[in-house]
């Protein structure tokens, strides 16, 4: 792992911690929530080593893994899933591509604006699909659980 990647993983943890504080997460859940951000970026980097180089696909896999992590932790700590999902997904927010999209727009650099804009959109869609994939699985699990109870 390069120094750059280690810095990214550590800062992903700290950044998620900062957001967890802003969202008023407390106690042990604060650590679990920020750990989610840490694991998210760790997985992202590891996928690169497993030669998954397509970034939207990496985003999709990481988003799905993080959602699963959030669902499991929410059940262990008996708290809404939102707690862990919103903090753990923070490092995946495409902040820099969004910035460059608007910077190119201001420079009237249309070719790069469109390229970057579409790329940002791709990342956002991959992220959404990752969340949805686990959402679908959880709904099936819940339905089966309800049927079992009856």
């Amino acid at each position: 792992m390069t120094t750059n990647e280690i810095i990214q993983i550590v800062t992903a943890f700290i950044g998620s911690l900062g957001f967890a504080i802003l969202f008023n997460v407390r106690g042990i859940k604060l650590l679990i929530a920020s750990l989610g951000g840490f694991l998210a970026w760790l997985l992202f980097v590891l996928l690169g080593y497993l030669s998954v180089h397509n970034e939207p696909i990496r985003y999709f896999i990481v988003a799905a893994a993080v959602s699963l992590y959030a669902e499991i932790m929410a059940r262990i700590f008996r708290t809404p899933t939102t707690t862990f999902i919103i903090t753990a997904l923070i490092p995946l927010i495409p902040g820099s591509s969004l910035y460059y999209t608007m910077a190119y727009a201001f420079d009237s650099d249309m070719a790069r604006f469109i390229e970057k804009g579409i790329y940002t959109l791709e990342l956002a869609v991959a992220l959404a699909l990752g969340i949805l994939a686990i959402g679908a699985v959880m709904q099936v699990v819940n339905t089966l659980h309800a049927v079992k109870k009856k």
Partner: protein
Amino acid sequence: MKDLLGCVMDIGEQMLLCGAEVHRVEDSVKRMCTALGAAQVDIFIITSSMVATVQIDDDTTYTQSRRVENVGTDIEKLHKLNNLSRAICKKPMTATEIQTELSNISLTTKRYPFWIECISYAIIAGSFTLFFGGNWIEALLSLLIGALIRFVVSLTENMLGNKILAKCLCSFSASALAFLCLRIGWVDSVDMIIVGNIMTLIPGIGLTNAVRDLFTGDSIAGLLRSIEAVLVALAIAAGYFLFIFLTGGVDA
């Protein structure tokens, strides 16, 4: 039952205000009403409004509606409200008991003090500057600007009372401070400083909840949230544009 419905609506409203997904609130309200003795419950909730009708027997129905404003994010309070709603489903309470519990939750749930929020803004901005490839000097400046932005956030939100305009001004000030650093000559480019500070302003929770709401079939709520998130993102871009436009881009 009339009072009970009011209490249940209070709990639901508070949950929405704390940033819960619509699906969760609808589910909780429905379960609570059933546990408290309603024969039929019909609920419609979107992020800004809720309506619930409960039928007790053949000739008694009650309807209440609420307008929900100023949705924020308070996970700790949401956790407590969720526990309360579970408790009610397990063992029905009287209206007064629920009222006491609710005011208890409102009184005992504290937010982190202002200075800790400033530090949070600072470390978010600083760490994402590093995250996206900025150097240590950029990260340090971004850290300081982040703390200042927290002041701008509370100033603008209190004075304007308009979330979108407030975000626009926050992004304007972040860009201004970043370009100031460039002008003084501390950094070679403003990009990473602005990226770090944008991360504190971006509506991440709005988008996540929007996707989750859309998927669970709460399309209207999901669309409302998506549109709000897109508007906020545009406001952030507008703040940045406004600064460059006014100053003609400060060249180093």
